């Protein structure tokens, strides 16, 4: 069976802005694939090319072996799209919107009726179905949009930032639903700039930055590539700087310790990278006791996707996010989003 999504050397520029420089990845059938990257990295443009809303300048874009460039209508049939900004007609009720959506996918009326009811039940929307969508909260809107994307039982569900702006509870509801969807056999492609979202959901992921894929693999593969475990150490709740530096000096001398950083932003806590599998914690405790320093907290963890991102780009996702926020022209981006070619 062909892969659910094949994207190869995708390029797309809007005027002077090279939104996507060179993106390639493959999504296998039945997996949840995450596209991770800061805002402005090219995720949404990639998705727009995949969903036939934008024509790539060059490259290959295929859904289930069908070219999105040559046979857009065939691709549209197989794909459900849940956009970043949920656009609901606020005058319609949820049920009316789903009926409209069903007609746009040419589902026969009687079948549509049943399927709408099933999806409303599955997404716990029955109570809201006959209210106008203008009265919905963010979580309900998102769930309705999920239902709309699934009405025609697509092979592939594409979600652009599915939980952005949602409260934690709604976010977990969406996550749980996506897992069930995967269990039922649907392929899911989602973009996110939340590390924990991709970490929690994705079987595999690609990290995108500056319009290029900079890393690809399963979350644990990527974490392994970064290597080492992370240890966070606090001597006191608020550690004096001299004490932290003294500890840094001593810990640096340990053979299994790769780096030690004093994190001044977090009350002079110490961030260590140590070799994987080393029995680090007892030896750190021993070292600190021997030089007479207390321990407030000490925790060891596998590297996070943030560490993967940091290793690949030299900056944390948060930094990238902040940098992007200051240079973004939201008005211009909205104009771009309105363009369909």
């Amino acid at each position, binding site marked *: 069976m062909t892969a659910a999504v094949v994207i190869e050397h995708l390029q797309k520029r809007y005027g002077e802005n090279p939104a996507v420089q060179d993106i390639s990845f493959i999504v296998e059938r039945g997996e949840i694939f995450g596209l991770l990257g800061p805002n402005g990295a090219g995720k949404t443009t990639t998705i727009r090319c995949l969903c036939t809303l934008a*024509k790539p300048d060059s490259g290959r874009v295929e859904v289930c072996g069908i070219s999105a460039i040559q046979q857009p209508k065939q691709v*549209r049939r197989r794909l459900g799209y849940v956009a970043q900004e949920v*656009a609901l007609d606020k005058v319609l009720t949820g049920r009316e919107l789903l009926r409209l959506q069903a007609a746009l996918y040419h589902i026969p009326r009687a079948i549509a009726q049943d399927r709408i009811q099933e999806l409303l039940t*599955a997404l716990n929307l029955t109570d809201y179905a006959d209210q106008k969508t203008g009265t919905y909260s963010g979580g309900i809107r998102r769930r309705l949009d999920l239902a709309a994307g699934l009405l025609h039982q697509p092979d592939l569900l594409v979600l652009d930032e599915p939980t952005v702006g949602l409260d934690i509870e709604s976010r977990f509801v969406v996550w749980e639903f996506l897992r*069930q969807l995967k269990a039922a056999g*649907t392929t899911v492609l989602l973009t996110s700039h939340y590390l924990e979202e991709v970490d929690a959901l994705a079987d595999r992921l690609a990290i995108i930055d500056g319009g290029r894929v900079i890393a690809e693999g399963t979350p644990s593969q990527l974490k392994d590539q970064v290597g080492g475990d992370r240890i966070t150490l606090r001597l006191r709740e608020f550690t004096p700087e001299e004490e932290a530096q003294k500890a840094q000096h001593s810990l640096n001398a340990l053979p299994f310790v790769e780096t030690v950083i004093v994190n001044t932003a977090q009350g002079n806590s110490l961030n260590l990278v140590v070799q994987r599998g080393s029995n680090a914690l007892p030896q750190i405790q021993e070292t600190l006791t021997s030089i007479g320093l207390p321990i407030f907290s000490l925790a060891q963890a596998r590297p996070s996707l943030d560490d993967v991102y940091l290793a690949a780009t030299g900056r944390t996702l948060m930094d990238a996010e902040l940098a992007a926020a200051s240079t973004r022209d939201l008005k211009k981006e909205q104009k771009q989003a*309105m363009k369909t070619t």
Partner: protein
Amino acid sequence: MSPSISPTTLAPKVSSTPEPGALAEFTQETIALTQRLFIQLQRRPSTLVAGVIQPMMWLILFGALFTNAPQSLFGPDVHYGQFLAPGVIVFTAFSGALNAGLPVMFDREFGFLNRLLVAPLASRYSIVAASTIYIITLAFIQTVVIIGASAALGAGLPGVVGLGAIALIVLLIVLGVTALSLGLAFALPGHIELIAVIFVTNLPLLFASTALAPLSFMAPWLRWLAALNPLTYAIEPIRYIYFNAQWSLTSPVMAAPWGDLNFGVMLAVLLAFDVVVLLMIQPLLRRRFG
């Protein structure tokens, strides 16, 4: 959220049901999109209410403007109210049609259009068709109200064939202008620009037509302009129907600066206007619709 979801609901469709014909698909999506517009109208009727009140104001206020004008000024045995009614019918239909692009533009701006564009529509012209059906229905409702009100104000009531001809003329002018507005809705960057275009088109086209005054009143240059204005080609035949119980396709309807034009020619010009507009917006729509 209930944890018990039947896997069959969520599972991707493996076997595809036999595809209905493209025409059946086009019909289904057009009906659904039209339905949406009418649900909007039903829940937010202010557009229609204003669209009915406005021509009433034209009839009453403008009608009163020339109450004391000499009776023979607009034609034998014609008072200004009678003269005005056809102008108001056409101008009202025209304004409504000119605004047809606005909902589409807002759908573009709010991202709702993307929902339509990622769907496997048989043809994206169903979006255009739905808007056109909606606008034509509105124009007919307005026309009926104006004809009724004008009759009550003493303008008389054309016969059944005359009413049919009026319907056809309204249809022709609405079709062309709606297409123009929809083309602009896809071509212009945003609603601000679209509203600006509507604003500079609407009233000038009214004053450069025979809606409010006959050609013979106008400065020679304006007479030329009015005789080239599509609105005039809709107004004059309707006016002829209002003024003459007997009319045919060969009736001389308008004395243009270059010669007399009969009823049939006027209709042909309106039809040609529609064809030209539809051809003009083709490239715009094709660029958007791929």
